[in-house]
């Protein structure tokens, strides 16, 4: 049984590698600054996704270097200027690819966990045994 800390750790493990996807997904709805991205991820996940918010910035830097997002400083209604990020065409294409890949992954894992495979893999029976060749 997991206690609170363990489930948080599991959550972080699951998050690894998926932060850029979430960032791109949030930015696909419109330009946003770092704080806004963190809040939007939290809001959309109903608080289930717990990000280390500081790690957003290296992620954004990486995406910017890959040409998936652009950023510029914009004046805020109150307070200092903010760096606003927006997704590029390359970013949208990458998000599309990542979304499809994620869907396949989720379906596969759900099948494994749920035990109800909806995909037949030739040579493998539903129970996971290698099918015997009747000719032999």
């Amino acid at each position: 049984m997991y206690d609170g800390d363990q489930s948080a750790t599991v959550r972080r493990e699951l998050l690894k590698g998926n932060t850029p996807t979430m960032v791109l997904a949030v930015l696909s709805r419109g330009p946003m600054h770092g704080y806004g991205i963190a809040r939007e991820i939290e809001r959309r996940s109903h608080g289930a996704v717990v990000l280390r918010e500081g790690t957003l910035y290296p992620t954004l830097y990486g995406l910017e270097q890959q040409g998936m997002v652009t950023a510029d400083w914009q004046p805020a209604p109150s307070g200092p200027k903010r760096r606003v990020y927006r997704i590029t065409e390359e970013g949208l294409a990458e998000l599309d690819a990542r979304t499809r890949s994620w869907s396949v992954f989720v379906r596969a894992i759900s099948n494994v966990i749920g035990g109800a495979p909806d995909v037949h893999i030739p040579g493998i029976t539903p129970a996971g045994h290698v099918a015997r060749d009747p000719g032999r």
Partner: protein
Amino acid sequence: MYIYRASHQPDMSRGIRADDAQTADELIEDYLDHLMAPLVGEMPYRMRVAVRDEMASHLRAVADAYVELGSEPDAAARDAIGRFGSAGLVARRWMAELDRHPAGGIADAPSAVAHLRSQRAALRWFGAAAGLSALTLLHLPGHILDTEVQIQYAAAVCLSAVAGMIVGWSTRIRPAWSVVRAMSVLALPMVGTYVAWAWWRGWDYWPFWGFVLGALQVTAWSWVGTCSASAVYWARTALTGITRRWAPQ
């Protein structure tokens, strides 16, 4: 909304003292100092300033939200920092990203910090290898002319290759030079260890041959260490596409 900037007037109507603001601000600034320190030499100065400003703005916004919910300013700043992640973790993420996409920190502005970091890494790893070698030496089962002992002596050379490879992988500037500097610092203790060892074992070649063996090891380590460090450094730059960084003297 409570503003943390010292230049702004705190909202005294909520009963918050002026020194609270400074405490919260100091907590955030101290945290950012720790976070940004490892990035010196990795990230150009102007970029560091911009990144720091951006993260400070984020932290203050989170802290503001906590204050809105009724937290004291310093507790709010601590909670905001907690959400942000440990300074070491965030700095490591930055280093990983900068490894993949260099920002030209060192290439643009070769600094004493980069050299120092490289030399420190060389000294650390070669120091550890020298310590391990000395321990091996102390536990040699027989005379230096025994085959088994000679194998162990030869194995000590491998330590320098491993240390060199780690230095080549982990440093970003002039790894071979860093190895040479590290070996020049370690030469005396290494030779001294051999002389002391020969004296302790009471063998006939003391002290001259102990000195010769030590000097041989230092020479071998210098060559093997610089070669392996350079090879791994060049391989790494070729594999990762990171621009080689040479500091003008």
